[in-house]
């Protein structure tokens, strides 16, 4: 099966399911769920099958390049292509999306209102999310980014809680604001890009997708440019090409406004756009409201997948395309990350609504992602520490996956309780260990995964990010590690108030029935993955590490290369003892006047 057919069918299979539901006359809610379950189950199976070795389409581990990449003409006059592909950054997120969506649909049994529209929207949402992670064309990426927005708006606004309209419109406005900034940035980048730069010759010749799409045009342009002929610039929306342009040429270095370069502005706009989605303090307040009002399955998808789109945008677009700006912004971004970690944890500590608490814990955990991406530490002499940066980025990626698992599980736990007793007040629980023992045991596992207990998935991302931050700034690392204490505080306090104690002291105690088999299996699957990633994190690193490390290396190389002349001088100055005699005299002469 060709890559085009394979990836496209995975991407649009949920739409097919949506069509089936749409045209199935008088379909019952249960049937809708079954169809969606089968549909998303097949998608999940297909993505998981990439993990199996030996299949013709299996995803090769320890491989940094794009796999299954293909491009078809879409709007060729603007160099816009239908360009999809998988690499170490997108693949784990695609698998996570498919898995969490499947579990979310499995958890949708309680949705009875307008079931047809609900399942159609959720299936469209899955296509949107997969599209965001799969597309390697910036324009296509933006389209899918917007596609995600609308179903989510309706899912919160129609099936949500009492303040659903407010929450939905807040979510929508926040995100659309970010999207507009993103749109500006990507148009800026598009019109500044030029593939006919001779420095890109090697890339243009080696990249098969470029070859297939605009290769001949680009090569002609390069030749003409080398011959000093006037050439029409060849713009591109290809994300990988834009990365190369950012890393190899100075096309984005032009000053744009108030003395800052184009990439500085592009970074800023993109960063705000992605930070809203992530969400980063202080643009995070849509999240608690959206979570509190959203129905359980939607919360699972929101926390499990949607937030990761922000982190993915940063690591895929923002950082690789604008390296110098990334370095310029290293400290502000890192500080924002630490603030988010602490602020989210503190705010969680003060919540009385169970779901709001979990929402704030998401804010805190996504702060690690930002911090991990930002740690561009510079040695004396201008060399950028690619090792530490690679570690930070890997930590950030791992944190996203781990959080996808643990937060989906936590929201599911809250949802299960809400379904039974119709309230979420933390001070009106207690004693659940007696009434729902299996559920309580599983919840402890999930909550401990979120707390960053070693042996479960939450620990690895945190420790990697903090270790890499140490090289960047010891103070930030120490301040950031306070989050560990606060996290333990609010998680343990929550567990105590909800699960421990001898009796449940809230309304509707008779409704607290033990967990059903379906509920146990959803939590069990999540916990199993949390344990697997915790005791053998290499099982995830083997797929993503090569790509992420390559990204960090490329950035570090670009930023180090900038400083090289200085550094050579520094070396000359530092090593008079080892230097040959004539150099010594030369140096002495230079110093003495």
């Amino acid at each position, binding site marked *: 099966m060709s890559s085009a057919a394979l990836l496209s069918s995975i991407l649009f299979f949920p739409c097919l399911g949506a069509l089936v539901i749409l045209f199935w006359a008088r379909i019952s809610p249960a049937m809708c769920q079954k169809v969606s379950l089968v549909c998303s189950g097949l998608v999940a199976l297909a993505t998981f099958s990439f993990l199996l070795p030996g299949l013709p389409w299996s995803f090769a581990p320890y491989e940094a390049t794009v796999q299954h990449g293909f491009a078809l003409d879409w709007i060729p006059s603007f160099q816009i292509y239908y360009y999809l592909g998988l690499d170490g950054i997108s693949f784990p997120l695609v698998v996570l999306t498919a898995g969490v969506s499947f579990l979310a649909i499995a958890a949708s049994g309680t949705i009875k209102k307008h079931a047809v529209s609900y399942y159609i929207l959720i299936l469209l949402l899955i296509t949107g999310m997969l599209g965001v992670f799969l597309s390697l064309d910036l324009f296509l990426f933006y389209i899918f980014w917007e596609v995600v927005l609308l179903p989510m708006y309706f899912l919160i606004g129609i099936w949500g809680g009492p303040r659903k309209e407010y929450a939905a419109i807040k979510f929508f406005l926040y995100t659309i604001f970010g999207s507009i900034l993103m749109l500006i940035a990507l148009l800026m980048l598009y019109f500044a890009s030029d593939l006919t730069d001779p420095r890109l010759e090697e890339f243009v010749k080696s990249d098969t997708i470029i070859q297939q799409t605009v290769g001949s045009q680009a090569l002609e342009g390069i030749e003409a440019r080398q011959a000093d002929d006037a050439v029409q610039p060849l713009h591109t929306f290809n994300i990988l090409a834009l990365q190369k342009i950012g890393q190899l040429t100075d096309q984005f270095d032009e000053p744009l406004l108030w003395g800052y370069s184009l990439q500085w502005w592009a970074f800023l706009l993109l960063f705000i756009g992605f930070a809203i989605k992530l969400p980063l303090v202080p643009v995070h307040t849509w999240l608690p409201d959206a979570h509190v009002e959203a129905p359980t399955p939607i919360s699972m998808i929101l926390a499990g997948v949607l937030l990761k789109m922000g982190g993915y945008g940063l690591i895929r677009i923002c950082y690789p395309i604008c390296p110098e700006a990334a370095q310029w912004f290293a400290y502000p971004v890192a500080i924002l990350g630490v603030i988010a970690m602490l602020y989210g944890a503190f705010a969680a500590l003060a919540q009385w609504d169970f779901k709001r608490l979990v929402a704030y814990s998401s804010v805190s955990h996504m702060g690690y992602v930002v911090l991990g991406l930002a740690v561009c530490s510079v040695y004396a002499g201008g060399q950028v520490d690619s090792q530490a940066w690679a570690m930070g980025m890997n930590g950030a990626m791992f944190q996203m996956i781990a959080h996808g698992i643990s937060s989906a599980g936590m929201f599911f736990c809250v949802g299960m309780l809400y379904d039974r007793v119709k309230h979420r007040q933390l001070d009106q629980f207690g004693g659940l260990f007696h009434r729902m023992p299996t559920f309580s045991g599983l919840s402890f596992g999930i909550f401990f995964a979120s707390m960053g207990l070693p042996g479960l998935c939450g620990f690895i991302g945190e420790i990697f990010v903090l270790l890499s931050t140490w090289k960047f700034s010891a103070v930030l690392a120490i301040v950031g590690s306070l989050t560990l204490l606060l996290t333990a505080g609010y998680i343990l306090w929550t567990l105590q108030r909800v699960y421990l104690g001898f009796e449940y002291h809230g309304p509707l105690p008779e409704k607290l029935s033990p967990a059903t088999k379906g509920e146990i299996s959803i939590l069990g699957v999540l916990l199993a993955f949390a344990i697997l990633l915790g005791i053998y994190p290499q099982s995830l*690193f083997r797929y993503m590490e090569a790509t992420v*490390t390559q990204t960090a290396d490329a950035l570090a190389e670009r930023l180090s290369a900038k400083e090289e002349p200085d550094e050579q001088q520094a070396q000359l100055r530092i090593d008079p003892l080892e230097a040959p005699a004539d150099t010594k005299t030369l140096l002495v002469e230079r110093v003495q006047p």
Partner: protein
Amino acid sequence: MNLDRMLPLLLGGAWLLPLLAFAIIALGGHYLKKTSSQHRAGFLSTVAILGSFVLAVVAFSMWVSDQGLGEPHHGPEFERAQLEENQTPIQLAALAEEGEAEHAHDGVFSVSGVWYIWAQVGEQKFEIGYYIDALTICLFVMITLVASCIHFFSLGYLQEELETGIKDHLVATSAGEPFERVGRQHRFFQYLSLFCFSMLGLVLAGNLLMVFIFWELVGICSYFLIGFYFERKAAQDAANKAFLVNRIGDLGFLVGIMALWGVLGTLTFGEMSTKLAELAPETQQQASPNKTTIQAASFLQDEEAKATNDEETADWNVGLLILAGLGIFCGCVGKSAQFPLHVWLPDAMEGPTPVSALVHSATMVAAGVYLVARCYPLFTEEVLLVIAYIGVITLLMAAMMALVAVDIKRVLAFSTISQLGYMMLALGVGGWSAGVFHLITHAFFKSLLFLGAGAVIHALHHEQLLIRMGGLRHKMPWTAGMMFVGCLAIAGAGIPGLDWGLSGYFSKDALLAQAYAFAQVNPSHVYLYWLPLAGKALTAFYIFRLWYLTFAGKPREKKLYENAHEAPLVMLIPMMVLTYFAITAGWQIPFTPSSVTTILEQALPAVASFETPWAAALNYPAEYLSHQYHTKIAWTAIATAGTGFLLATIFYVWQGLRPDEVQKQFGPLFRFLQAQLYLNEVYHFLFVRPLHGIARACSWIDRHLIDPFVDRMAKGTVNLARLEDQGDRKLIDRPIDWMSASFYDLAVQLKATQTGMIRQYLVFLVLGTVGFFFIVGYLWQL
């Protein structure tokens, strides 16, 4: 025999067996709802830990047959002869350094390797591996032995957890009745097995990150076990407190790990010493005079720049190393309940007594001491001094609190803190093997004491207050006897002339001798010897106070006394085993000159050899040098302990002095000690409340600053849209409407000309044509 191959296999197996038991119970727990079948879980756990013990013993014997039992370290004869005479401290110090150079470690034999790569990023690898030396093996045997005993004991102690209707008298339902619940013995053994796995993993770990992983895991096991009676508010709070206070220490540990990673680039124990060696000459060079001569040569400025640059890096590195040492020690302060993070351990006594015996006296709390011992080469002299002083403060403070505690388990908890302080002190003054040796002997006698206390509590149906006991020696002669042995061991009883005593005699003697030797060469730190010595009297006093109040005299509560009974065999036999080791753990192994100490000394690490810029002028006497003081110290120690014993006897047996009168005399001090120096309240006021305050502030900012801002923005936009809408209606629509209306009116008026009469139309036509020509003609003329 191939140690490299067999040891990881054996110890790895011993490590994983409890995990297997845990997994089976955790997954099968669903099927153990019936209390009648829960005892299977207990058996499974016990069999697993017994299997671990057997494997550990096999590994130990393989080690011994390959590596021998170790020889007692003694300096060359002539040196000793010189040392016999009185010498000035300076000379002694010089000798110490010489001796150090001679003894400088002929390499510690260890087996280390990797099981699997945990995570790899770029070239940085993090591995799940092992590091096995004499220390690892000894601790494996000790842990599995004590754990096996305690598993057996628990089978008896938690017998009642097999019933369906357990009344928890400490929890009152809203109706005022005691809360009734179903037993859950299998959960207890599930946590216990997980704990054994984590604890063994901690000892086996091949790198610091792995230590950190298991460090946190033992913490969470401790959380579960303290909170075993989770219906009780006190137990929940104690469990939370234990975990959170430990997390504070762990933050320091994490900072230490980060600093160490920054300075060494590795966390693997096997690689650390080589990396340190690479670092050491660099730093030492700074102090060497050669450097200055070179500097005196040509191109001064550049040279100086380089030198200062190097010096800065070196200083920076040493600074980082000190930070790393302090950080790691901070973790140990949390785990080993040292001042000021000791507050969780007394509360941790809310857990079932076997847990206190295993987790909170013998193994987990000793993990901090183990880690200090394991990371010994990393600690610079400043850090060691900090360790020593923290140890002294802790041991005195806890011993004094033990004097006034009224709960039998709390006395033992304070005693544990105090003994851990002794171990830290020993490590801090250079007594590596003395500290580790005391760790092992303490594990035996303290778990014996806890099990004895457990037997008493079991017999009295969960009565823990000392003032309600008394006279129990008649009812429980075996327990009383064995506990008396435990008391003698912790007090360090022995006969110095014959060099015979219980285990505590040897280990305390060794560590006091080392403290004495240290105080001899560092006169400014003489308190590091005198205070622990005073602590010994306190130890003897509080421990015999406990014994007298429990077993001696007349019963103070008749009813409790009547119902008391001797513990069943399943509880007595483990205590007998522990009694045996509490007596003999310090003895020489028959027909050899060796003992546990010499086996441990096979793992003796080199003392840190850093010339640190901030180093106080400290001298660390090599441990073998302190052997000469043993006899002298032994007499002093016995005398102090005897004083303590005598005082306790006067107070509680002969009634020569009345305790309540003394209490009245020292009222404020007594209350201060009983309130644990008000540290809990101080911490609550200084840390807990401010943190909650900040938390509320953050939440407030969200609700009252950010959200209104966003809402106003949205509202503003809507208002703007409304304004625009009004503009549309009034400025644009209105003129257009007016225009269309006037056109309409015009059209209506013009309608009147439409009459339908041909003649009239003709007139209009003619007039129009004539008019047209007139106009055209007129225009033409222009």
